[in-house]
């Protein structure tokens, strides 16, 4: 759901990391799937960005959903290559 432009994020990262240990590092951006929970029957299901405003519960057909995942925005970890 986050409005992140991945190419720009890498370009800004390249600028900010110049001259540091992180210079030349590649950002691996993983989009977390959008998971909705039906307000009526609590069924959880995954939808695409385009489907999110018209999603119906696959089990009971209800149209009101609570978003459970899809807004995450965090640094999960760093992979470092160590010599030797």
């Amino acid at each position, binding site marked *: *759901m*986050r*409005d992140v432009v991945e190419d720009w994020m890498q370009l800004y990262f390249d600028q900010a990391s110049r001259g540091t240990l992180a210079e030349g590092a590649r950002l691996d951006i993983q989009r977390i799937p959008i998971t909705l929970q039906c*307000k009526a029957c609590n069924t959880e299901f995954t939808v695409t*960005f*385009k489907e*999110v*405003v*018209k*999603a*119906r519960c696959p089990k009971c057909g209800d*149209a*009101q*959903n*609570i*978003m459970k995942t899809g*807004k995450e*925005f*965090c*640094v*999960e*970890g*760093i*992979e*470092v*290559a*160590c*010599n*030797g």
Partner: protein
Amino acid sequence: MDEIRLINIKEQIFAKNTNLANEIRERLRGKNVFLMNLMSSPGSGKTSLIIEIIRKMKGKYRIGVIEGDIDSLVDSEKVAAEGVPAVQLRTGGSCHLDAPMVNAALETMDLAALDLVLVENIGNLVCPAEFDTGSALNVMILSVPEGDDKILKYPLMFSVVDCLIVNKIDYLSFSNFDLITLCDRMHTLNPLAEIFEISCANGEGVDNWCRWLDARVSAGIRLEPGGESVSTVHAED
């Protein structure tokens, strides 16, 4: 041979902003001040709605306004003309307000003399949705001339607000804006949000919206005994 090691970070990118936003909420709760964040596209009626809120509610609450703009003092001058304290934040290019900016504005205000602070965010349906300002209530406006499809283009904004106000409904009969489809989509995306239809131009629906806001504010703060008279004295200053 290179060995690849994974260092777990698990750090929220907005942690610094979110922590300060939580601090602001806590501090304002202690000071008995209710902070509302108003977001929308440019020209959808944020300033007009703020002026309506001031006119209808300043008899009950002591209101202050934080105006966010990339440049100019136009909006804060309009608001100050209504007789309430207004602070203009000029972001100089930044397209949203965040917790540090709102915090800086709050530090210039006499919070002991205020019950309700309205934040007019930068006109933009993208970035303001990303940054918690420390507000107790997040409200957005969509105006009829913008079209009913904005929820398809900017779903994050529609998903983070407590209330959607559809403004300029006096234009409905001149447009193909589909209010029912918009409400259906909003109920699907954000079923907890309230939806109001208003026109700041002819006043339709504004009283109804202000009654809802009044209920939210009065549930969020406690007015001092005789608070109304305190507010009235302030309003006439």
